[in-house]
């Protein structure tokens, strides 16, 4: 999984870097998505694409380099937590440069590349990671008694987002997932409820739903 993303990233950058390098040189310098780690690929003409297998090798070399620099770290998380513009932004520019195959239909919803999907996944992962952080942090969630959500809901177990909206007797109304999140912030965690558009609430919703991926929607189930 991680390697696939890295390959996508490497390929996308190869196009970008290759385009930017002077035509005369018979080597290409490729920069990893962290904008620091560099690898020189001899014999590769700028503009020329790597073959699939070779791209994998480059990706592996990158990963080794990066791991040497960042022992014990997780690539995706480290990239997501980096300050500055998200790495996804750098890849976005290169995506447009890819030629659209003549046999394919082109349009807003048909021209997705691996790089596009990489961007989306990275952005989503980042959002979910932020929700994960808040869910596991008694203070970040605004609690006052040192109780965090994960204490009672490891991996968001028993939060059942797929059953919302549903009538909650104690609230005397049909509740959305965010209403129940807020209820649990107020009661077990003894904090203040968050506004509907609070980034923390949005991120927690994302985390909770991501944990239940693949479950059938069953609004109203108790």
């Amino acid at each position: 999984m991680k390697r696939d993303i890295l390959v996508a990233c490497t390929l996308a950058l190869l196009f970008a870097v290759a385009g930017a390098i002077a035509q005369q040189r018979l080597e290409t310098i490729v920069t990893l998505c962290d904008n620091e780690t560099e690898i020189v690929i001899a014999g590769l003409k700028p503009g020329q694409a790597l073959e699939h297998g070779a791209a994998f090798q480059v990706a592996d070399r990158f990963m080794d380099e990066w791991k040497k620099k960042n022992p014990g770290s997780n690539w995706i998380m480290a990239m997501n937590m980096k300050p500055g513009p998200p790495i996804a932004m750098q890849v976005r520019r290169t995506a447009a440069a890819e030629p659209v195959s003549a046999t394919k239909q082109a349009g807003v919803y048909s021209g997705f590349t691996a790089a596009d999907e990489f961007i989306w996944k990275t952005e989503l992962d980042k959002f979910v990671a932020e929700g994960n952080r808040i869910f596991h942090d008694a203070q970040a969630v605004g609690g006052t008694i040192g109780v965090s959500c994960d204490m009672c809901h490891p991996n968001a177990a028993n939060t059942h987002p797929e059953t919302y909206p549903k009538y909650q007797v104690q609230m005397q109304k049909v509740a959305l997932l965010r209403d129940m999140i807020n209820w649990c912030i107020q009661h077990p965690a003894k904090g203040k409820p968050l506004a509907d558009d609070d980034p923390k609430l949005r991120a927690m919703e994302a985390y909770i739903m991501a944990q239940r991926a693949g479950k059938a929607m069953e609004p109203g189930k108790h």
Partner: protein
Amino acid sequence: MPAKHKSVETKWYEAREAVMRTVPHLGRRDFFNVMGASAAAIMAKGLLPPHSFQLVEVAHAQAPKPEKFTFAYVSDTHLYSPKLNDQFIRAAMRAVEDVNRLDPQPDFVLFGGDLAQLGAKEELDIGRQILKDLKAPLRMMVGEHDWYLDMGDQWRDYFGKETYSFDHKGVHFVVLMSVMEKDFWTARGLTPEQRMKTVAGLDNSTQSAFEVGAPQRQWMSDDLAKVDKKTPVVVFSHSPLYKYYRNWNFWTDDADEVQAILKKFDNVTVIHGHTHQVLSNRIGNINFHGLLSTAWPWPYAPEGLPKLTVAMDRSNPFSPLDGCGDGRIDMNADGLADMIYNLWERNPMTVPASYLKSLGKTNLPSATMLKTY
């Protein structure tokens, strides 16, 4: 008039009235609870009150054998500093009151581990204070929340050795420290507080798996070498001594090795804390029972739940004590243990040894009304 002079009928009417008093405040789930309680009361024709914690004994009273005895438990109190959070402190006090009201009194009380939330002296202090109110003798077991701030120094100072054994009325008891973890903190440069917080979480993959470890297994083999195979053996461990769900450390990594040490005995019961839920299992010659927490219940893990477990109902989020409780263990004359769960907001639930030993063919515990999904 002191509680022990009340007749069965008086107690029943009092318990029934207590249930009825709560009716106007009921939510949907509670309503079903009361329905269940009333039905049970009717069926028992006044012999088993809805809150029959003390009187489940009646069911086992027909064939009194000399070595029958009971002990009670309180477990997983997860106490915070009273300045930060007194909710769990009040719950722990309630459990102590419950146990003190048992009539007859249990021979001793097992504390199942995780007295503190983050191993702090202040947390252990308040816990020790609360447990001092128990009338019956106390047997302590350590949990990971008591341990990983100072690797058990303060706990040992208060409660003594974490691994020990004792004999009581013909039963051999072994108390283990089953939450040893391989060093994950030094390489990461974690402070003691960070180490404690990491271990305190369930759903992080940073920490190592729990294990009893080779030195303690050796001690256990030596200890049990002196014990006849016909002697009933009861083992207390904080983590379940089998492999339930690794991702949440509902797990003991060397469980197979520990079970092998217990193989020679006719009757073995393992009683563990940590999982905060009704949990029953049988592997080979061993019955396993999980303890309730007084602080909060845990959801059942998404996989690995032992087939013999009759789940407790899903907890009501609108009732902070639901799914929590304490309980009692009745040692039968054959050396096997019946587990009585005193669920605070629900009917008590009994998981008899005969149910586990028959692999679920007899004496089914009462079924859940709200299934886990």
